[in-house]
């Protein structure tokens, strides 16, 4: 009898496990009855927020390559509310399905919304159980979040996925910083730091549209939008943030040639000193890179000379890029988005405590010195003596 009971218990437990082995489902809700969000655009209205969401068209997306009908892979809905949370919940009146934020890839903040306090926008995503802290953020430059989400791309695809890939890969190549909800909150909570969020604009391409990452939006220490920086300046942020680990850098060679290099490994370290009341940030960057291409007919005679010239040129290009970015950030509407305040707090806490109240005035006065140590790892498949005629 005891053995029989044990077998029964085991079987019933197994059946319970078997029935609960269903992924991507909320208990009691079918997959097709969920609004599986992919991208959320946030804009402002007179008294609240407007959200535009790209959702998976569950029935169409369920079969590989779609089910062959003319339906799109995604659906787009818009709703309004006094808070972001309310607006998102009201989407149910449009789709009839339950919202699911766990798969959302990207949050696009419209330009007007960016002018509001960022904390108000992010609070919902920070608090919501279903929402992931690793969602990427971007700002819709000169446009609204709705227009970015509704952009008419050439192919029928998940637009938010394209945007997510653009943001991920560009960050990997050190073109723009990668800003997740976690990063945004960390910057906002840091009393000295501003925030830099990649900016995306819509480009006309005949009858269709393209996304174009165009620099970054800078937010001040009070989390309000202060200015845009262009792509050139945005590229220097990774260097200043000591996160320049991969990417392309173009350098001017002494003989007037131009060469491009692919950085495959980078390591940087800051040293902070105070001299005559001015803070000096000494950045040491160690890079390893591969030659990608040289322009111009001339070439160098000896390998050692070439390598040395390349190394010097890469170092100079890197310094120039970082210095130009810092000049922009130290400008009138700039902000400490490279966490110089936090670095000072970690290295010289007493000094930081004395300076923090005037950080907005101190940051523009900071002097930067960069020392580079560049190694050319590979030169590609072409030798230096393969003279072109």
């Amino acid at each position, binding site marked *: 009898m005891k053995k029989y009971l044990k077998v029964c218990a085991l079987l019933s437990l197994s059946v319970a496990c078997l029935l609960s082995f269903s992924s991507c489902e909320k208990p009691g809700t079918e997959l097709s009855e969920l609004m599986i969000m992919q991208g959320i655009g946030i804009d402002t209205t007179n008294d609240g927020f407007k959200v535009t969401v790209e959702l998976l068209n569950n029935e169409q997306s369920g079969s590989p390559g779609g089910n062959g009908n003319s339906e799109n892979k995604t659906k787009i809905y818009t709703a309004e509310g006094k808070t972001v949370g309310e607006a998102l919940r009201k989407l149910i009146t449009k789709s009839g399905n339950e919202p699911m934020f766990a798969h959302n890839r990207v949050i696009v903040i419209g330009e007007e919304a960016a002018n509001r306090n960022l904390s108000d926008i992010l609070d919902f995503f*920070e608090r919501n*159980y279903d929402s992931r*802290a*690793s969602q990427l953020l971007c700002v819709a430059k000169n446009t609204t979040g709705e227009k970015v989400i509704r952009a008419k791309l050439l192919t029928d695809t998940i637009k938010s996925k394209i945007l997510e890939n653009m943001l991920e890969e560009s960050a990997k190549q050190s073109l723009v910083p990668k800003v997740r909800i976690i990063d945004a909150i960390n910057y906002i909570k840091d009393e000295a730091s501003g925030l830099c969020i990649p900016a995306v604009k819509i480009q006309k391409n005949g009858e269709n549209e393209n996304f174009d990452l165009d620099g970054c939006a800078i937010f001040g220490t009070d989390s309000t939008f202060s200015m845009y920086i262009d792509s050139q300046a945005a590229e220097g942020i990774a260097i200043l943030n000591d996160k320049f680990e991969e990417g392309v850098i173009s350098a001017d060679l002494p003989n007037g040639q131009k060469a491009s290099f692919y950085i495959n490994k980078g390591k940087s370290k800051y040293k902070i000193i105070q001299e005559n009341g001015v803070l000096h940030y000494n950045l040491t960057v160690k890079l390893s890179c591969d030659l990608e291409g040289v322009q111009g007919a001339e070439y160098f005679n000896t390998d050692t000379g070439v390598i040395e010239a390349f190394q010097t040129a890469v170092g100079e290009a890197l310094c120039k890029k970082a210095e130009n970015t810092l000049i922009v950030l130290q400008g009138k509407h700039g902000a400490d988005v490279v966490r110089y305040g936090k*670095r000072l*707090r*970690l290295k010289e806490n007493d000094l930081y405590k004395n300076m923090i109240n005037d950080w907005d005035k101190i940051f523009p006065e900071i002097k930067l010195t960069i020392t580079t140590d560049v190694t050319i790892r590979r030169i590609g498949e072409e030798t230096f003596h393969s003279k072109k005629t």
Partner: protein
Amino acid sequence: MTKSSVSAPQFFALLYLSMLGSMFMYISSPKITIATAEALLRPVVFAVVSILFALPIYFLCTKGGLKENLQAEKKSKVYKGVALFYGVVYFIDALMTVARFDLFASSELFPGTEMTYFLMGLVAVCVALTFCGIGALGRASTIFTLIVVAATAFASFTLSKEVDLLNFTPLFENGVGKFITDSLSFSIQASEIGAIVIFFPEIKGNVKKHYILWSVLSALSFSFILFFVIGTLGAFADTQLFPTYSAVTLAQFGLFERLDALETAIWILCVVTKLTLYISAIVKCIGFAFPRLSEKITAISVGAVITGFLIFISGNINNFNFISFTPLVMGIYLAPVIVLPSVLLIYNLIKRRKKNEKIS
């Protein structure tokens, strides 16, 4: 090893799992910041406090002759009273564990879902496991420990590239005094230590050596986990109800994303172990106070009462706040670790003196 005896390494594997369970579902007090560099040192204080505060237990078990006294004092009202007190303390502990897991499950695993029935099932499983005895639980714990440690190490490995040293703060930024008070608050979460007194007759082997090893390993594990939590989340950790879980949600390995599902499945082992330990302790205490009661009926009754209270707590966050009230948490740590063993020590001392006086 029999059903009712457990080796010292197995017993401390059980306590280690129980502590890991607390760490995975760690909720920081509003007054204590997680995202600081000194948070990594708080476990050191935990180890020191655990060793120092366990001195009454040590004296009770060694010089106090606990094993013999538990046999000799079966009818003693003081021993029975203390046993009942232990039972009450571990009942509150069990309730806190289930309530915290309820909050965790309904917030993170199935947001917005009523988890009471699931938790009733969990309590039922734990009650059934108490029938197997502390020996079986100890042996299972050694296997569970391997699984949990491997899963935690894997998650940490996948998180290593997400660690940013800028997420830390300067050491002792808010002063050493604040560090000490925060560390003490952090350290008083291991009320399981008191269970040594309850299960001492069943533990075979060098308890002292394994206890010290447990304290050190628990502290190292806490620091290790906190390093990844702070390194990956930074100040964001302080905005999260369950920061350890929030950090794990970032873990991914190659094509495999959302490893948190795997991790939480494994963490449940810790919760089951912790809860079973508490229920076993309660059953043992009630059994000491009322020897005629059947252990199985007691375990079922305890499970039923825990479930009843859980239904009351589950629906309102204020009730949860009440059972997480700092003085209560402090009380249920100090009572089984310091107060109750000290009461028994003093009682034994008085009794011995009276006996000596009679002889002389």
